[in-house]
């Protein structure tokens, strides 16, 4: 048993609660985090879970977890459900307006649970 792991990562929910190609929102350290599950697809990602801030800085509402996932060129993106700007899931950058960049989080699947990494103290 490794206690180190459990202190660094927080479990959010069972991985099957998140349907493929959709997102959900988690409350993590007081912040709203959008977590997505992508169909594993070699070209774009080795991972299948991504986490970025849930706040859409352009629409000014906590909605990014409810956007449509996909790719634009070689960017893996979510389209904001409000005004459809694309946010890169790796960098958090808004493709249409790089002035806007949302926070990204480390996320993983561990023992069939989705986990977010705690921020360094």
């Amino acid at each position, binding site marked *: 048993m490794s206690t180190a792991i459990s202190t660094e990562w927080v479990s*959010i*929910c069972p991985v099957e*609660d*998140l*349907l*493929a*190609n*959709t997102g*959900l*929102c*988690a*409350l993590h350290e007081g912040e*709203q985090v959008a977590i997505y599950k*992508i*169909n594993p*697809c070699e*070209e*774009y990602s080795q991972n299948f879970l991504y986490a970025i801030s849930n*706040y859409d800085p352009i*629409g*000014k*509402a*906590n*909605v990014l977890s*409810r*956007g*449509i*996932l*996909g*790719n*634009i*060129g070689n960017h*893996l*993106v979510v*389209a904001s*459900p*409000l005004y*459809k700007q694309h946010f890169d899931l790796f960098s958090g950058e808004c493709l*249409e307006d790089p*002035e806007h960049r949302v926070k990204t989080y480390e996320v993983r699947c561990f023992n069939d649970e989705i986990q977010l990494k705690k921020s360094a103290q």
Partner: protein
Amino acid sequence: MSKQRIIVVGNGMVGHRFIENLVDSPSADSLDVITFSEEPRLAYDRVQLSAYFSGSTADDLALTSEGYYQENGVNYVLNDKVVSINKSKKYVVTASGREEKYDKLILATGSYPFVPPIPGKDQDHCLVYRTIEDLEAITHSAETSKVGVVVGGGLLGLEAASALTNLGLETHVVEFAPRLMAVQLDEGGGKLLRRKIEDLGLTVHTEKNTQEIVAGENCRYRMNFADGSFLETDMVLFSAGIRPQDELAREFDLKMGERGGIVINNQCQTSDENIYAIGECALWDGRIFGLVAPGYTMAKVAVSHITGGTEEFTGADMSTKLKLLGVDVASIGDAHGNTPGAQSYVYTDEVNEVYKRLVVSEDNTRLLGAVLVGDVEVYGNLLQFKLNDMALPDNPEALIAPSVGDAPVMGMDALPDAAQICSCYDVSKGAICSAVQNGCTDVGAVKTETSAATGCGGCAAMVKQVVDSELASLGIEVNNNLCEHFDYSRQELADIIRIKGITTFDELLSEYGTGLGCEICKPTAGSILASYGNEYILKKEHIGLQDTNDIYLGNMQKDGTYSVVPRVPGGEITPEKLIVLGEVAKEYDLYTKVTGGQRIDLFGAQLHELPDIWRQLIDAGFETGHAYGKSLRTVKSCVGSTWCRYGVQDSLSMTIAIEDRYKGLRSPHKVKMAVSGCTRECAEAQSKDVGIIATENGWNLYVCGNGGMRPRHADLFATDLDDETLIKYIDRFFMFYIRTADRLQRTSVWLENLEGGLDYLKEVIIDDKLGICGELESEMTKVIGTYQCEWKTTIEDPEKLKRFSHFINADEPDSNLAFVKTRGQRRPATEEEKITAIEVVE
């Protein structure tokens, strides 16, 4: 080395562009910039000002943000006017008493509306049209006004008139000259424009000289004209031209034009070499330029001169193209044919209300000017002929004649690379071509790369032509592909799904597409799959395809909450059900409003509340209203023969039957229907995709109408139908539309693009010319047979309900939501209200 200090007086469109150019210049680091604005905000898009009346907010109009200025080290002072200049000691003083030294001073003070010196002009409700504050005042005044008069029938005046009409006022335009837009249009063009505008319900009065504005009898004011006539009105909006804002130059002794304007040279310097003037306040070669593009060029020239460049301002083209009250109007160069020897070609079509005039040189080889009203498609081409002084084809009249056979299109190859395509961002043909060569293969990419067509948008068609022609010359095929993931149009994808019997997006993508998909192709495929398969849209294979509204079965509002709209077929509702709606709204504190679709919309529901709300509604016998889907919305109705003294058929029973039949039908765009019980047409059926009007003998069927931005009356499709035939035709009509329309194409646009038009549509649906009517009917039968209320299915499935909470791991609601009470109900708080609310708490 100390930095060079630059002061920009005025943060309007041109002042801001100057600063942008400066920030982007290589010498930006050695400059220290400060700008003063008399207005309470940074630069906004004055050209799009009227969009404020169609819903744009001050934020939408903003050209920049305080963040951008801060990041780039530009100092800005709002709400403070520069009131004096000390030229020898090189400093300015503002109204608040602030003194700032400069090395270079830029006057970008724009202009102000000219208000003729008419007695009575200074009363309340006598307004102008230039700033956001002006528009707020107009909106405010409109609330207590019924009639509005615009003084001035020029370009801006007509725009203002359009705004007043949109605000619901009975609108008049009063013009001193004998015709509208006298500067830009010739007599024929002005006449047609007038006719078109009068068709829209506005009244135009020409050759009227207002003498005084006095108290009115039926309205607030009465305007007395020199010829003895008068007009009563509640509001007067002056739009009688602009005057350069040159008071600083006047008071502090810079050289001025006789009739105003700050004189500048080719470098945009005034009579003091350290002071520049740019934009609408500047006078070059005796001329003021009242458009934004020349101002932008001046901004560029001034930056170039300050940073050691050699660019010069050598005049600008004043051609314009615009849409006034929905009427397209354009004017190029010498529209009046004033050039000695000039000859004209004129084309008039009174039936379709089109007027075009070409003014050509004496030898018939060069274009001098043009006037276009009603159809301005050739504007871009004509402008290029003019700007580049290109030789006209042998038969120039063909440029404006209606296209019988092949019209001579100007090959884009003929255009020189230097030709300016986008005047807002000064993008040349060469720049667009090289963007294409460097990998921009569609207009979207070219727009991002070059900024072309991202200003006024007037050049968009031309940009597309250049892009297409460059792609063609590079041997790249021009396509109407849905998006980067599918090399097919929506119609082709619909065929594939239907013929190959495809049932999931993954299957479609792996066989016919690439990549992962996106927010364009996923909902499109989701909609086609639903049109043919009609499976539960939140099924795990389909859920990721659903657009913003579908995915939570509600319309997402600006703050992330949802609206709840149960179906109320035909608007008929029992008092018991009405009470349930009221009780639910009360329990969840939902903002409640009656929609234009004869039903009731409850706003402000949070994700976690949706299932409980719908459970109560479904228990009371409601169903989802599909207000969130690209699908059938409502069937509007009048009461018809059951109550109405005039009704000849039972329109309400028919309405309820067809709403029930087509509810939930997913389609390329939303579709609306209506049924009227007699020819008086109280249900406004002719503004719907499918409209039905009762006759003595049955039903008349109308198709392909719509309201909205570009209203279109429906076309009469068939007359005196019995119930059964009526339904049969509608079934076929809908399925044919679903099969062949483009993504987000309303039936109106679909019909306009359908080769053969209405006659062809009749052949397909009434005469079964294609032999597909059997198929269309059975497809419809299948969809109807598989209908389910999506909310009912959802609340019965605990797995699906998990998604209806804001957090997967906490029971809290979204902490960013905040509401404010207005007229007894709550609404989302604005960003400002949220900030002040937080301050109060802390």
